[in-house]
């Protein structure tokens, strides 16, 4: 029995069944070696218990993987896109002021406040409003009106001059004031009319340009890198042409 240590180790750890435990206890009463060994191993077990690991710094936890990022906005302005958009806006304003026709690879870009737009989406702004203002015709019309006024004044003059001698200085002054007053009223009316037309033209063109910029932005959103480069080159040409014309 002493050769096999199964019962000894089982007894030491209390893992013998009842029958084996009674058998080994009976053996211990008659075997001094086993008693001594059992006592020595029990003492060793007691010593082993004093070995403790250092206190660790825990805090380890399983965390869920980074939460799914929120869905990206359909159109997000990256720095490059921001620059492109800013360039389009600036060039749009510059082109609006510049009054240019720029041909680029078969594509004609018409700019300027006084050039009619060809943007389909703003056709409802009114064909008449979109018609280009012919300043020479307007000047000629105004000239014609002035001539008519002069003719009309002459037509009245003989009557008055025929009896000029009969008129007192006060009558002459009154007539002159009336004529001046009529002329001034006409001029004011003409001026107000022109101001109204200019304001309407400006508003129409502003709507046109805003629509064109919107469409340009929409195109830029869908444009590939090559198209963006193309737009940029086109805008550079516009800027160069504007500078040269200046």
């Amino acid at each position: 029995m002493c050769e096999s240590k199964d019962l000894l180790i089982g007894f030491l750890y209390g893992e013998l069944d009842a029958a084996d435990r009674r058998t080994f206890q009976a053996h211990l009463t008659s075997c001094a070696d086993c008693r001594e060994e059992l006592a020595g191993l029990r003492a060793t077990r007691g010593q082993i218990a004093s070995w403790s690991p250092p206190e660790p710094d825990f805090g380890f936890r399983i965390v869920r993987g980074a939460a799914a990022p929120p869905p990206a906005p359909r159109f997000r302005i990256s720095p490059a896109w921001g620059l492109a958009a800013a360039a389009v806006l600036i060039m749009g304003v510059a082109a609006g002021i510049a009054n240019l026709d720029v041909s680029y690879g078969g594509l004609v870009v018409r700019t300027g406040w006084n050039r009619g737009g060809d943007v389909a989406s703003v056709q409802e702004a009114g064909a008449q409003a979109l018609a280009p203002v012919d300043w020479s015709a307007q000047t000629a019309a105004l000239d014609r009106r002035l001539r008519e006024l002069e003719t009309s004044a002459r037509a009245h003059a003989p009557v008055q001059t025929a009896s000029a001698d009969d008129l007192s200085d006060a009558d002459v002054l009154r007539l002159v004031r009336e004529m001046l007053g009529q002329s001034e009223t006409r001029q004011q009316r003409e001026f107000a009319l022109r101001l109204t037309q200019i304001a309407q033209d400006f508003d129409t063109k502003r709507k046109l340009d805003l629509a064109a910029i919107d469409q340009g932005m929409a195109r830029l959103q869908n444009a590939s890198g090559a198209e963006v480069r193309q737009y940029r080159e086109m805008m550079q040409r516009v800027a160069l042409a504007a500078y040269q014309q200046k």
Partner: protein
Amino acid sequence: MPSTDEELVARSMGGDLDSFNQLVLRWERPIYALAYRVIGREEDARDVAQETFLRAFRALKGFKGQAKFSSWLYRITLNLCRDWMRRERRTPVSQAPEGVDIIEMAGEGTPSESIEDLVSRHELGRAVGKAMALLPEEQRTAIILKEYHGLTFQEIADLLDCPLSTVKTRLYQGLSVLRKHLHESGVESTFGQ
């Protein structure tokens, strides 16, 4: 009433991360202690403990529940310890604190323990650690699982994939060698007697 390991495992398998973290909280100290006693280095033992839980978390779907969850964790830990020893090509070391802080020790002790008892207990602990490091890995592992984790012979046999008799032999041989080393080191203790 706290949930059992099996309940927490079941909930973890259903995607409940809190349940798994409860298991981590419950088992991190035993797992770290096992790794520390096997490989003998605090930092490496902590890494092994963390890696154990990470692997368990990743492999949770494959846990069929034939063994206890703790046994499954022990198996992962022991495999990682073996990898560590193979990689480091070294035997475990007994890493004992250089300076013994009496005040800190007094806080750990029982109220009835004197300072002299505390100091001797720490010295004994260092001696045990050194003696354990001299044991062959199989004997050391068997003693650690039995003495510090309270596994039965059968559980150790299942964990180490060896016969029951082999476990008993390793325990007997390991304890006998420890007894001899500790006697030679001159430390005496009345613990457990």
